[in-house]
């Protein structure tokens, strides 16, 4: 399948992921990691995308960490599952952040792939070796118990 959308991710083997939504343009990975499926988040200079107010519109790790801090996330050390917390992982290439994934309660991860589908993936590494670059930071927030 040379033109399969998933050929953008050479390490994303079929047994490592599950497609969980149809493709959509309405939200991206940064929004999806934040739990928002109605908005496209990005700190673009033109201001066409949503970005939390009072957060720098720049493609830096700090700007992304500040954006997620507006919804309760704080930096943490690793991707290990912690009871009572949900985590996100930030990917970056040499120019800055590219992608975010959110941890599911069972320790797997969920990602929205640009304008493509949402997927569940077993590891964070299966999206590396692509234009997403590598995981460079983790954040966590307490899960609110109902």
């Amino acid at each position, binding site marked *: 399948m040379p033109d399969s959308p998933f050929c953008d991710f050479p390490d994303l083997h079929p047994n490592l992921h599950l497609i969980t939504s149809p493709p959509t343009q309405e939200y991206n990975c940064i929004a999806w990691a934040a739990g928002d499926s109605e908005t496209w988040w*990005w700190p673009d200079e033109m201001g066409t995308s949503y970005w939390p107010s009072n957060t720098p519109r720049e493609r830096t790790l700090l700007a992304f960490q500040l954006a997620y801090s507006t919804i309760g996330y704080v930096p943490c050390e690793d991707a290990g599952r912690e009871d009572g917390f949900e985590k996100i992982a930030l990917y970056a290439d040499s120019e800055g952040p590219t992608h975010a994934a959110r941890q599911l309660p069972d320790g797997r991860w969920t990602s929205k792939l640009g304008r493509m589908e949402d997927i569940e993936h077993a590891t964070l590494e299966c999206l590396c070796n692509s234009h997403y670059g590598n995981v460079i930071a983790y954040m966590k927030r307490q899960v609110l118990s109902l």
Partner: protein
Amino acid sequence: MIDVSQISQINSQIAAHMLCQDSERMASLLEQMCGSIRIPSPQSYPSQAELMEFFMPGIHARQTDIEEEFSELSRQWKRDNRSSSSTTVIAMHPAYQRIIGMGTPALRLILRELSGQLDHWFWALRAISGEDPVPESHRGKLRLMAADWLEWGRRNGYA
């Protein structure tokens, strides 16, 4: 009364508009211009109908070229950016930049595309038109942004 040099001047204006306007606007302009010419001798100058007949094939051909170019660039752009979340990367793609470079004629094509399928055309619309009808509260909400731009297009004769 007009002389040959004035006709030549009008032709230049028409040619200039041919490069940057769509066929409907061009036809309307042509009609307006031809209607304003007071021709001293009907035998020595072309009629409005003859002028229309002379110019319209070129206008239609130009419009078809633009539509084909837009379709091809749009296809390339969508294919190459499907897994990117960065609005900036999406907008900096060479095909997208070429669409911006098409200028005003691309506005109607973008809005037509946007009315059928949501996509990240907002950067191009702002860059080409120099306007921004999207309120702060709609930023990033593509359905609302598309509705704002389509309304802008209707108000300005592009949709």
